[in-house]
């Protein structure tokens, strides 16, 4: 056994109730789900927290439920669960596409949507789709169950509204007839599989009698948090030209240079993706 493992511990609660109790009473414990981010940190010696709570085998966290007004995706649902779900494929194509663009199949079989969001990387693949669909996020603790619009969840770079005794329970995505909407999900990485996004995009647009009745766009990797571009949406809905939209978009995003790409490239690609989205009829 590797010696650094002595510093770490992990426990598997028998139920959701026991998991919430442990989270509440042990302030140092952190959630562990599919492990596709945390196991990498562990092996590289950079996993900061030492004590973990395994929630991957709690069945109710993995539920995907369709009710008259919402599709509810449990935080523990894997990207394979999401990609294979026929209702999500039909009604939420942006989320379906996002799920299929995470890593590769072996990663999708383990990685969970809750982990993708809780890890709070601005480059994560699922958040732009959740933002565009106006998802609500349900947070659960032993004492409390709160449901907030997902667009408020990311408070800053790697900062979220989760408090230490809470876990993400589920995402509630409002159902609507989106058959007449243009929907585009786009991920740009070094290669199609296994790459972390240089930039990712989700957009939804509904035209009605020559005008734009609804427009929602979100980007990953262009700001400290996954970003819903509300100012650009407003210009779109007011009938702005492509040039007007691009001018606002360029001021609304704040891409940076990092290991995967640079600010100039990200800005240009964001504009290109938006232009393509704008021109889809």
């Amino acid at each position, binding site marked *: *056994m*590797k010696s650094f*493992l*002595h510093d*770490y*511990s*992990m*426990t*598997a609660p028998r139920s959701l109730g026991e998991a919430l109790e442990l989270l509440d009473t042990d302030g140092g414990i952190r959630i*562990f789900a*599919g*492990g*596709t981010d945390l*196991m*990498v940190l*562990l*092996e*590289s010696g950079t996993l900061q927290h030492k004590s*973990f709570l*395994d929630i*991957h*085998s709690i069945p109710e966290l993995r539920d995907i439920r369709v009710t008259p007004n919402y599709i509810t995706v449990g935080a523990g649902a894997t990207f*394979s669960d999401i990609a294979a779900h026929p209702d999500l494929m039909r009604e939420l194509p942006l989320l379906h596409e996002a799920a299929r663009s995470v*890593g*590769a*199949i*072996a*990663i999708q*079989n*383990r990685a969970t949507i809750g982990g993708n969001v809780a890890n709070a990387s601005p480059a994560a693949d699922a958040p732009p789709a959740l933002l565009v669909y106006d998802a609500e996020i349900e947070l659960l603790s032993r004492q409390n169950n709160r449901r907030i619009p997902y667009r408020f969840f990311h408070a800053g770079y790697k900062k979220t509204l989760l408090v230490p005794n809470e876990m993400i329970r589920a995402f509630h995505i409002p159902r609507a007839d989106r058959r007449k909407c243009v929907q585009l999900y786009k991920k740009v990485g070094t290669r*199609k*599989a*296994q790459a972390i996004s240089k930039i990712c995009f989700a957009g939804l647009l509904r035209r009605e009698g020559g005008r734009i009745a609804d427009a929602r766009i979100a980007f990953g990797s262009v700001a400290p948090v996954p970003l819903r571009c509300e100012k650009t949406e407003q210009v779109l809905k007011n009938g702005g030209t492509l040039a007007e939209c691009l001018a606002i978009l360029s001021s609304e995003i704040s891409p940076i240079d990092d290991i995967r790409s640079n600010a100039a490239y990200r800005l240009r690609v964001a504009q290109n993706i938006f232009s393509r989205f704008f021109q889809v009829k």
Partner: protein
Amino acid sequence: MKITMTLNGKRMTFDAHPMSRLLDLLREDARLTGTKEGCGEGECGACSIIMNGRLVNSCLVPALQCEGADILTIEGVSAGGLHRVQEAFLQHGGAQCGACTPGMIMAVVALLDHNPNPSEAQIREALAGNLCRCTGYMRIFESAKNAIAAKGATR
């Protein structure tokens, strides 16, 4: 802690740290060295195995989550003689240095278990998480295609 799993059809118990990697349990405790370590961070697919019917990177699976699991490694795939996917890799030059080969074969076995008649695009998607440093991708792809065609010939 004690971890009991079904490994290649046999119930086995290991004494392991809950956050030990399944990869290390397989290679060091069970002495099943067919599963390779490549990158150790879920990028290369060399350590691919099938867990509860699904392809996973064993370097990213902690031992604790293997309690009660059904694990199939390359050794289990060939337990009753070479699998038709292995036959196809042999016949079509799907292996060069061999380091990626067990993972590639596990990826194709997992694909065919879920989808006996995959399209070319589906084969490419199924192999997208596995890297070959010899860059023998076309032969690997041809081997996978021929494994489908050989369906029923062996098993």
